[in-house]
Every structure is written in C-alpha cells, then in structure tokens.
C-alpha cells in the first residue's frame, strides 16, 4: 500500500469534492475508506495498491474530471 498526497488547483465548489471522491473511488486498487479530498487546502490524500493502479492513472482520472493536478507526492 502506498499513500499519495496530490495537490490540485484551488477547489471552489464543495460538489467538486464529491465528484473527485467518486472518480477516485471508482478506480481498482484504491483503498475506498482512505480517500480524502480536502476542500480548503485543495488536496487529495489517497492510499493505493501500486500493483493494481499507478499514481499516473489516479492523476489522469482527476484530470478527466476537469481538475488540474499541480504536483503529487507518493510515499
């Protein structure tokens, strides 16, 4: 299990959170309970299994929803 902190462009609508949360939870290999979208700091915290899904795929799914990823850190 790896955990990533993804910095997004400033989030402005609270419904963005539901969208991003829904989008990431839909990915295989992401820990469903550990997805956290921080509205005010515009960050996503997520735990994922690197064998099933890569950080690039996670970023891509956020991108597809229309939000820019500024940078991400994987530990």
């Amino acid at each position, binding site marked *: 299990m790896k955990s990533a902190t993804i910095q997004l462009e*400033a989030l*402005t*609508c*609270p*419904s963005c959170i*539901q*969208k991003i949360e*829904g*989008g990431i939870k*839909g990915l295989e290999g992401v820990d469903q309970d550990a997805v956290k979208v*921080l*509205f*005010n*700091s515009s*960050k996503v915290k997520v735990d994922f299994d690197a064998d099933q899904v890569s950080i690039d795929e996670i970023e891509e799914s956020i*991108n*597809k*929803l*229309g939000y820019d990823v500024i940078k991400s*850190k994987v530990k």
Partner: protein
Amino acid sequence: MQRHILKNKNKITLINGILIIVGFFSKWTMDNMDIFTGSLIIASILGVAPIAIQAYQSLKVKVVSIDVLVTIAVVGALIIQNYEESAIVTFLFLFGAYLEQRTLNKTRSAIKELTEMAPEKALKQMDNEEFMVVDVDEVDEGDILLVKTGAKIPVDGTVLKGEGSINEASITGESIPVRKEEGSNTYAGTILDNGTIQIVADRVGEDTTFGKIIELVEEAVDSKSEAERFIDRFSKYYTPAVLVIAIVVWLFSREIELAITILVLGCPGALVIGVPVSNVAGVGNGARNGVLLKGSEVISDFSRLDTMVFDKTGTLTVGNPSVAEKEYYGDNTGEALKYLASVERESDHPLAKAVLEEIGETTFPTVEKTEVIKGGGIVASVDGHRIAVGNVTLMEREKVEVNEKAQADLVRFEKNGDSLVLTSVDGKLKVLMGVRDQMRPGVKKDLRKLKELGVKNLVMLSGDNQVTVDVVSRELGLTEARGNMLPEDKSAYIKKLIEEEGQIVAFIGDGVNDSPSLALAHVGIAMGSGTDVAIETSDVVLMNSDFSRLPHALGLTKATARNMKQNIFVAVGVVVLLLTSLIFSEWMSMSIGMLVHEVSILVVILNGMRLLRYNVG
C-alpha cells in the same frame, strides 16, 4: 475539447455577458427582435456548455451536482423558448462561480501565507564535497546542507559549522533573532538573518516541526464538525430530491416554467459553502496570530466554554521558581546546607533547582540512602545523619519539633505566597526556605479579558499548599483555587466538572505531567515550550507558549462560531424565502432566483472573510 471549454470558462463568461448586453441593447434602442433573440440563444448555448460538461462529469461518478440542476433548467428554458431566462441564468451562474473563486482565495489567504513559508530548495553537499541546489524533497536525514544569509533553513537540523542568527518567527512567533552556533538546533522554515552555517539534517519534510504545523493547519481547515457532516449528508440527497420534486411538479402541472424554476431555486449554494468558509477564515486568522486551532469541533467547544482550569507552575507562573526568603535555626547551618544540597542534587523537582541555585557552590557529602515520600518530600541519610527535606507534612511525620519562632516564620512565608522547603537534620529543624515563582507578565490582564469574553469559572489547580495557592488566586482574581493536588487529583477534578456538572472545560497545563487532564478536557492546551509535545497533545496550540494569545484564541473561536451560525441562517433563509415567494408571488422567476442565490453565496463568503480581520482588542 471538454478541457478546452473548461479552461476558457472565464472567457466564455465574458462573451456570454457581452452577448446579453448586445441583445438587450438592440431590443431597446433599435427594437430589433432578431438580433435580440439570436444573441441570447448564442449566449445560452455558449454559457451552458461548460456547465453541461461539469454536469456530465458528475453524473458519470453518480453525483447529482448543482451543474446538473442548472443544465436541465437552461435546456428546459431553451425548449420553451424563454431565451432571456436561459441566457441570464447561465451568465449569473458562471459569473457567480468566478466571483466565488476570487473571494474564496481571499478567505484562504492566511493559510496560504503559512504554507508558502515552507522551504523549497536546499544547498546539499554532494559526493564531490560541492554544494548543489536541490529540491527540498531530495534531502534525507544525515545530509549536510549549507545555509547562506537570508535563506530559509530547509530542515530541522543541528549546526555543524559556522554561526549566525536565525529569525524563528514561523515556529515560535517570536521575531527577535536567536543566536545559533555549533551544536544548536535549527528549525525548517525559519530564516537565517545573518551569518553562514552548515547543518546536518535531523528531520526532513513532514517530520519537521514546521511540517507538522502545516499538516495540522491543513487538517484543521478541512476537519468537519458534526453539523457539517450532517450538511454534507443532507446535500448528497438534497440535490437529487430537488430534481425529483421538479419532475413531479412538471408531471402534475404540465408547466415546464414552474418546474425549471424549482430546479434553480433549489440549488443549495450558500448552505454547503457557508460553514467551510467561516472555518478556513477563522483557522487562518489564528495561524497568523500564533494560535493553531485543531479543527471546527475544537472551535465549537472552545466558543462555548464554561470553565477554564489552569495548572499553576509554568502556566500562570513563569515556571522558574527561586528562593525568595529563608531562615536558619540552631547552629551548624553550614553543615545542614551541604546535606540539603546533596539531597536536592539527586531530585528533579522544580523546587530542588531553586534551592540548589540559592546555596550556590558547595561540597556535596555522599548520600547513602534516599526515600521519596509522596506528597511530602525526601528522607535520606547522609554522613550517618538522617536528613528530611520537604513540607510541613513531612516534618510532622518525622516528628520534628517546630518551635514558636519557626511557626511564625512558616505562617509569614505562606502568607507571602511561598512554597515551603523545610530541612531537618536528625529530627531538628535547621533550615526553612520560601520558594516563589514569578507570575507570567500580563497574566492578570489576560485572565480578566477571558472573563469579559464570558468564561464563567477560572480555576487554578496546583501541587502547592493551599495557603500559597490562595494568595496567588486572590492576586489574580480567580474564582477557585485548589492546592495539594497531584496530577491524578487534577484529572479527577476535571472529570467531575464534565460528568457531574455538565460543563464545557478547557485545561491549560504543561504537556508532560498533565497529559491525562489535557486529554480529558474538551479543549486541552499545552504550554510546554517543547513545541513537538505541545503540538501533539493540544487541541489549541499557542505558538511559543504565549499565554497572552489565549484571549485572542477564545474571542476568535466565539467569532467563528457566530459567523458559522450567521452563514447557515443566511443560506437556509434564502431557500425558504425563494420557495415561499415562488408560491405566493408573481415576480419570482428563474433568473431572479439565480441572482438571489449567487448573491447569498457571496454574502456568506464576504461574511466569512470578516474573520480574517478579527482582533480581540
């Protein structure tokens, strides 16, 4: 294509607005209905495009967002050929979102200032002994870094070479530079005012004190109270419910106009954003003023505080006691002092330090045996003599005779607010010392402010004798003061307040001894100057253990809690107002509804922004 449209949302909004102006202009001045209709249709289609894309994206992840409601409403308006409504609604929605973003960024500015203080680059020593600029993420523990004048310290470390003075305001809130030399500790995020130093990295990134502070604040601004979680759950079902209601209304009344108006009026706008906005502005104000609030639950508890319980030593007092007065009895005082010094040298009690400082340089006869008497002091044997060092209880237990003169001295010392240290040698009283701890400067004024802000009870708990405690209590104007309290007595007392009297309690004490009390109280505030401990154990962190920040902290949480309530009131009030006027009035329409919504959103954001300027005064 989709991304392109979303990227240019602001341009679309602008063109959309211009088209609407052109449309109305040609209608009023030239009476040209073709241009009017044409430009409004283009404006509607252009304007609904980014909204529809967002709606589609959210439906894909099974979320009925506001975009979905607005898209359906606009499409509906187009179908019934109400182009005026469709164009204006899209404009208001897009322009509102733009203003929201701008103002929201303002409310977050205080937090941003803090996170931007995080170091980004470091000069790291490479294998060839040269220093290279690297990203701070590439620094590991044990790396050697060079810091030049004016640069940020990139990590928590130890000075290896060189000296300089560092401005540690970002960690301690204290802006007077601190001198650092070989072996001194440095903190990430602080600034080297002058000098050049080499440091070895001890902790990097999120493990540094500064990293922890940032993480704490970021968690805090997004933490949710029970009320917010309720709103979240509520809005999850609220928007789909509005959609269902609109469909039902349409099916029964066959009036598309009414149905789509309901869609727009039902948007939950201000409700979902009102509380987070107050929260981020409140926490942001705190961070700027040396008060870190750990989230909205803490804000809520702190703002409703009934009782504040203080530890005495190190909290209300400076925590650096010294001997204020002393008396000697009988002869061989010199010997007695040596015995006393030997015994105290082995103790880590704060009073022992004061006693040793008072005695100064001396020789230390070997201590053969010591026994700590809980709540009394120490009994030891030194050079074959039985030495007892401690309070009056210990002297009674040791059957030490206290003559009339000594009795009078005891009473006098206690009245002065001293903690008493008595020393007996072989059952004879030899030395009496009165140790006094200075009040923190300004503490009296701070306590008065807390009272003015509505805290009902100010209570002091202390391990000192009751007479001393009473003296301090009277001087500070506390409502209650209890002496002879062990750490477990303190936590029992707090438990009683919470469970039996149903009070909301804050405890302010040092982070080490009093951790049970800190954990028990609704709001725990640790004063320890070891910032790490204070950050871990506190609900509210006072930077640099600055007691004078407490009134600001309390006033701010009260203002924030009030602000949240105002925002909820505005949001709920607007929805109620819109729905009732839809039923009872003629003038309500889709675009007026959208206008009121957007205005209400801006009102709650601007209201939240006021918190950034809050000052307890």
